[in-house]
């Protein structure tokens, strides 16, 4: 889509674009280019000596068991976050779409977690489940289970998944609710007249018609789990115990900032960039085609 009526000026459009482009070049393209450049280099710990090593950083990474484990951790984490977030919010949105009385109050009470910073969400959940003083820990222990996410990898994963999902439910809920409300009533009514019950109507009409929203949310949630959950991890498990919750973004940070391994961290950044590009392309293809069956 283009405007027919436009203005003419030799310099004004460039001046208007200048601030955005300047920030983009200085803080996005230049660092990204440097990340790519560093990824081909090997530096000693003090940054005194640099050597061009080609693809060595990448081949080292792909042979590093910790890195491959981090890939697997990230995959498990993002599938759990996206899956449980989408399932819970779909249930809540379906119910909210049904009620008339109190609809606004329910909506308001469900959307506020969006405003909570991931790092704060992590603190809240870590406090509930704290090994020695947590209130939920107390209940779990009473029930006869051993709970200590500081030592148990699976429990640590469960904790970060809960905290990350909790924060994202509001977002999914709003999109599902909008999707549900745009489904033509006539379709659902026709099915009801033909004798289809509520469950049947949901699975044969509503759920398929929601598929564009579901696909869209799947991609958004995976992007969220990959990149925006850094705060959740850093304020709770810090990647531990023994790397059980070390997702890729956390490892880039840890290797680069804490271990000062510039080359290795940059190579990881480059791999992450490729993943973001793939996810962004997927996201835009879904939006463009509006997946309809």
């Amino acid at each position, binding site marked *: 889509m283009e405007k027919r009526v436009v203005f003419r000026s030799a310099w004004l459009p460039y001046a208007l674009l200048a601030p955005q482009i300047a920030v983009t070049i200085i803080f*996005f393209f230049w660092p990204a280019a440097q*990340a790519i450049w560093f990824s081909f280099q090997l530096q000693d710990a003090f940054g005194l000596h640099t050597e061009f090593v080609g693809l060595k950083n990448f081949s080292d990474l792909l042979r590093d068991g910790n890195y491959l484990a981090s890939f697997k951790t990230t995959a498990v984490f993002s599938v759990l976050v996206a899956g449980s977030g989408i399932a819970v919010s779909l249930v809540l949105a379906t119910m909210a779409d049904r009620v008339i009385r109190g609809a606004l109050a329910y909506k308001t009470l469900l959307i506020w977690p969006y405003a909570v910073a991931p790092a704060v969400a992590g603190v809240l959940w870590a406090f509930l489940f704290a090994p020695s003083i947590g209130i939920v820990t107390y209940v779990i222990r009473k029930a006869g289970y051993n709970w200590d996410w500081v030592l148990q990898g699976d429990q640590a994963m469960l904790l970060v998944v809960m905290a990350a999902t909790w924060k994202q439910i509001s977002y999914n809920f709003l999109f599902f609710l909008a999707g549900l409300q745009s489904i033509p009533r006539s379709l659902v009514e026709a099915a009801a007249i033909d004798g289809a019950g509520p469950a049947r109507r949901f699975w044969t009409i509503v759920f398929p018609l929601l598929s564009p929203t579901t696909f869209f949310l799947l991609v958004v949630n995976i992007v969220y789990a990959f990149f925006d959950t850094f705060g959740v991890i850093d304020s709770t498990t810090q990647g531990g115990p023994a790397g059980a919750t070390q997702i890729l973004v956390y490892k880039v940070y840890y290797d680069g900032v804490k271990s000062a391994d510039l080359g290795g961290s940059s190579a990881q950044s480059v791999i992450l960039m490729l993943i973001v590009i793939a996810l962004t392309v997927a996201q835009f293809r879904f939006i463009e085609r509006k997946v309809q069956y």
Partner: protein
Amino acid sequence: MVENRPWLTVMAHAVLIAGIAVIAFPLYVTFVASTLTLDQILQVPMPLLPGDRLWENYSRALTAGASGAAAAPVGRMMLNSLVMAVAIALGKIAISLIASFAIVYFRFPFRNFFFWMIFVTLMLPVEVRIIPTYKVVSDLGMLNSYVGLTLPLIASATATFLFRQFFLTIPEELAEAARIDGAGPMRFFFDVVLPLSKTSMAALFVIQFIYGWNQYLWPLLITTEESMYTAVIGIKRMILGGDALTEWNVVMATAMLALLPPALVVVLMQKWFVKGLVETEK
């Protein structure tokens, strides 16, 4: 409602109430903990009804912070968060507004090239270029400054898209009329485009305010002085190793203080929040 099934409606209410209760539970416990003494929290299980230390805990947090190595008043941190959130939101809106105005209302060489340059920033989140960006900001001498906290985050592909989409829906007749009346591009921008964009700007402001307030990784990297911490970073710095060493009552009061402003923005500006959320993802 398609048909009258009372038990289904009852179930819907029950599921929603249960869902809200589970979702609100962490917040409730946080609030309760922020009104107790540390001893009350450390006794297992902690009480589930608010105590009487609300005023003491919150005023301690605001003026002094939790005791420990990195004690700093949260009042100052909240000011930093506010400056960061408002500067990022306004900065993003300002530079995206004029950039999309240029892209929509002018024809000039490299127009598409610039548009794609802005688009590509979507694919470069700060998480994937942590160290080089830190280096750039440090070389520019922007560590521990408001400029360093905000400037690198104000480029925005989503805001540029949003305004571009919106400008494309402005009727051609308005620009035609403006040109016939002899108005230049900037006159048209200030008298026609800007007033029409008010709702989009409000929606975007809500979303970007929350985005700015909740930033974590970036302030964690570039703020080393306590006077530049944001509220979200402050909490992290207050939690020491071991449950018993941390002053949980003050930490929890800080957590409430850190999440209250953005939560209020979402709840009180709900209409714009929903609009902004849905539109920035188009």
